[in-house]
């Protein structure tokens, strides 16, 4: 089959169009109106002239900035403000023992307490002087048992599972959890991170961290020292940061400088004096109490005859 294009004998378009070419001569040549040149030049001049900016175009830039800032703020807010319900789901074990963790403070604080080797208080609880403080902290033990089997964060289980778990809790427990979640949300990101890390250490999930037993022992010791204070004062002590807590412990738990007797600021004693130490007694020149009435002139009430009468 031949290609019709190559069958064209014509070397020019005129020859290609054949007889039709001549018929096209009947089409008239147009003459542009005389005004067309001037209107064309005006149109081109108008198009080349810079257009005045519309009044609303001046607002476009600021509006775009405001809209961008609004969008960025919304995104940042969503990124930084966590959903309370999500916190409840993800950190349920932390919230269940929020008070214990809040009292313990942080891993850094407890590590420093262990390092400084503070002695336990002699008096256990406020108003119960003389009673030895038992190294038992039932709430801490319960929290540790929970943390040992718990998981934290997004891997803590599906929201549906957590929701079911929450629904099974008594109403009072749910209310406490909700209050703890609100408080947890109010903490700074660093504060929240400290509590979660502490729970991990208590549960034995932080293998690379400090010694778990040492931290637990420090937490018990700290709890005992807190117990020596008036309950009304404990909340204020718990709110102290790490440096202030250590300063507080230095003030109450360390030996008074210069006493040499192992006396604590809470009135207790560290123990027996070391061998060879001078016997404990009053300062030189003070009378020594031996269980009998003191010798010397009677210092009782005056004889009846020496009682002065009423003024006349």
């Amino acid at each position, binding site marked *: 089959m031949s290609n*019709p294009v190559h069958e064209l004998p014509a070397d020019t378009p005129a020859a290609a*169009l054949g007889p039709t070419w001549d018929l096209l001569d009947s*089409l008239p040549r147009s*003459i542009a109106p005389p005004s067309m040149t001037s*209107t064309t030049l005006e149109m081109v001049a108008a198009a080349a002239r810079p257009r005045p900016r519309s009044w609303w175009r001046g607002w476009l830039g600021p509006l775009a900035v405001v809209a961008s800032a609004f969008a960025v703020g919304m995104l940042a807010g969503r990124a930084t403000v966590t959903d309370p319900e999500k916190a409840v789901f993800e950190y349920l074990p932390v919230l269940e023992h929020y008070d214990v963790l809040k009292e313990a403070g942080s891993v850094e604080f407890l590590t420093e307490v262990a390092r400084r080797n503070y002695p336990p208080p002699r008096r256990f609880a406020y108003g119960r002087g003389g009673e030895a403080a038992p190294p038992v902290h039932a709430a801490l033990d319960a929290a540790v048992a929970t943390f040992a089997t718990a998981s934290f964060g997004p891997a803590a289980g599906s929201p549906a599972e957590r929701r079911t778990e929450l629904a099974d809790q008594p109403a009072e427990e749910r209310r406490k959890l909700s209050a703890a979640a609100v408080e947890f949300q109010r903490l700074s990101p660093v504060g929240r991170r400290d509590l979660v890390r502490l729970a991990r250490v208590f549960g034995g999930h932080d293998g690379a961290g400090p010694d778990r037993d040492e931290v637990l022992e420090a937490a018990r010791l700290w709890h005992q020292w807190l117990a020596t204070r008036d309950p009304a004062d404990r909340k204020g002590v718990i709110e102290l940061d790490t440096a202030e807590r250590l300063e507080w412990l230095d003030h109450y738990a360390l030996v008074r400088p210069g006493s040499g007797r192992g006396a604590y600021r809470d009135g207790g004693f560290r123990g027996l004096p070391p061998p060879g130490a001078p016997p404990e007694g009053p300062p030189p020149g003070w009378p020594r109490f031996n269980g009998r009435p003191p010798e010397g002139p009677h210092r009782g009430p005056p004889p009846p005859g020496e009682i002065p009468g009423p003024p006349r």
Partner: protein
Amino acid sequence: MVTESAMTNTLVDPSTALMLRVRDGDAAAFEELVALWQDRLVTLFRHHTGDHSSAEDLAQEVFLRVYRARATYRPTAKFTTWIHTIANNVSSDLRQRAYRRKERGVPQNVSASTSALGLEHLAVAASGLRPARQADRSELCDVVQEAIASLSDNQRMAVLLAKFEQCSYEEIAAAMGLTVPAVKSLLFRARDQLRAKLEPYEREGTR
């Protein structure tokens, strides 16, 4: 560096010389260029669109584009080829706008395209009522105009560039962005189609 072909174009083609002056910011040269080309462009667009007022608008659009692109003009090719390319682009844009209006369902003006039935009827009537030799130029013009309108847009532009702008195959191909064989094919098919429409006049032995 000015090439030999560019120098030849500048020397031989007055439009190229004018355009170089326009490029250098000569407003008077642009006015001369408009005066030199406006009739040719209006003729081209009038037969391409079938509407005289539209043809003037399109010609002005071509001049506007020429002015806007003046800084990029290089006299490496003939100015006629350059302006024909712009004219073809303007025509294509018009076609696309019309297509989009049609897609959106916007009614558009009836173009010069006429149905084959109407064309045949007009041709038969013109040839039947009067002998072809007696048909006045006005009637013949209408018949040829209808026949031209029945071509496709590309065929019509190729025919008009060949007839009214005396363009060669190569120049038509350059202006329309086609190959020379494609232009030959376009003209071949256009000839067949025009012959079918204008056969009564051809049979009468025009001139």
